[in-house]
């Protein structure tokens, strides 16, 4: 076999992207995600259906405050993100196939970047698709909520994927770490009054929603708002963007230096 053929780093990265996308899509994570979204869909459909004891038609504000904010943003979004991102590198590592990526002639930061792009694309498709379905099941009332939530969902997904992929590059059992983080930090810490909740992604997502979702009455009132002490939407957007870039840069740096066993 002659060796004169030119090779392209871009083509090699594209192959990493396709491989990661394929392996993540045809995986247990997709089944788990589909089941969770199915359950959420069922809950939403039941909630939206007029009952004899509650015959009044549902409103956009109710959909946002009773379904989308607690169920989707508070639980499903981080779970979907972690299921794909935390298993991307640690999964290859535990299946002992990471060695084939580490011994190619692609610089390691680019391997990481290609995997990040694949996981992000897949996760965005699932999170935005899931959000759209949840908003559209109750009918027209969901359109207004979808308009408010989709931008926040996109930015939060980018940040979560960056964070959980960083975990995946750092530790072998990244899914457990990510799950612990999602449940302990994102779910509990975000509700602690003061400034400690500012270490969570969901704090900035909520702050953003409270400001842009005023027509939906998402923000708490009175003392509750004072305890939560949200930042402005512009600040939240900046923090989420900077955090996403920071997580990605840190992940590329870590992956390029780490000696995997």
């Amino acid at each position: 076999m002659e060796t004169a053929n030119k090779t392209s780093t871009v083509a090699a990265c594209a192959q990493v992207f396709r491989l990661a996308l394929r392996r993540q899509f045809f995986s247990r994570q997709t089944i788990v995600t589909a089941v969770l979204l199915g359950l959420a869909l069922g809950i939403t459909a039941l909630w939206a259906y007029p009952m004899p004891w509650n015959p009044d038609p549902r409103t956009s504000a109710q959909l946002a405050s009773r379904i989308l904010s607690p169920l989707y943003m508070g639980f499903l979004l981080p779970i979907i993100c972690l299921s794909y991102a935390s298993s991307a590198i640690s999964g290859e590592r535990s299946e002992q196939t990471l060695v084939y990526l580490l011994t190619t002639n692609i610089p390691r930061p680019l391997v990481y970047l290609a995997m990040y792009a694949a996981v992000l694309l897949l996760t965005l498709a699932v999170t935005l698709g899931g959000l759209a379905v949840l908003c559209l099941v109750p009918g027209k009332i969901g359109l207004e909520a979808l308009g408010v939530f989709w931008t926040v969902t996109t930015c939060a997904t980018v940040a979560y994927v960056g964070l959980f992929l960083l975990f995946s590059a750092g530790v072998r059992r990244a899914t457990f770490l990510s799950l612990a983080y999602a449940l302990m930090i994102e779910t509990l810490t975000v509700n602690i009054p003061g400034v400690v909740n500012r270490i969570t992604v969901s704090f900035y997502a909520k702050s953003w929603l409270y400001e842009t979702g005023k027509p939906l009455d998402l923000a708490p009132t009175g003392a509750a708002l004072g305890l939560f002490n949200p930042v402005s939407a512009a600040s939240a957007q900046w923090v989420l963007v900077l955090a996403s870039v920071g997580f990605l840069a840190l992940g590329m740096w870590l992956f390029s230096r780490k000696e995997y066993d």
Partner: protein
Amino acid sequence: MNTKTTTTIALAEVRNVSKWFGPVMALNGVSLDIGSGITGLVGPNGAGKTTLLRLLTGQIKPSLGEIDVCGHDAWSAKAKDHIGLCPFGDATWDELSGRQLMRVTAGLRGFTRAEARRRAEAVLETVGMDDRANRPVRTYSKGMRQRIKLGQALIHDPDLLVLDEPLNGVDPVGCEELNDLFRSLAAQGKAVLVSSHILHEMDQLADRILFICQGKLLASGSLAEIRDMLDEHPLKVRISCGSPRRIAPQLLTLESVKSVSIEPPSELLLEVQNPGRFYAEFGEFAAGNDAGVHRLKATDTSTEAVFDYLMERALHPE
């Protein structure tokens, strides 16, 4: 013993490399060159073989020292252009077919789709898997997996092929086919580094052998070169003669002979201390006595015997 024999241009250079994982020193001041031809890497479990292979393929960095492959630091992406790795484990992307796996591996090397397809077909034929390439890899036997992994290592036509136990699980006919393939690659000027615990395979396959134990390179060179270096290595020699009982006491008078045992009906088994000296003394003895020697044969010139001796010396230094 930490020796170095370079007969060809070095494709990989290891210079005073040490590697430790926490308190455990996996490699200790190893220096060696790997040139074209087949080099066998031999050592017991925990000797540091896998660490050396991982260092050479840029999976880990040395704690001290330097490793260059074709002039590039082994950790760098440029060096990996020249390296093909067949790892020890069975794992690969099992959900793909053999043909898809080859195309994906070629794609990971940055080849165009057309070139990846062409290389995939060529390599599948080379490793003898072209007739089973449409089956998913998860249905392959261990031997077939070894072949397909070897194909992955060969897809970009590397200068340095690093094979960790490549014949593990391959049937005898397959072993011979793969050995022929390794020889043909070596004949093309490539460096083939084969790690194996099946020592007699190394005897027949490797041009040069690296003995490694407890993180140190004990010896390197051809088996004959290593034997020459081991003057103190006791060698067993079997002699067929007409009257073994008569010449046995006479042989004991030779300085190089440590012990003699008679093996009826007509053989003697000698343990000699210094092979070169023994052959000289025995020549004189046979010429001066009516020894009636029909045949003389050294019985433990295999890698195994040398290996055992080296290991013994490393583990129990005097």
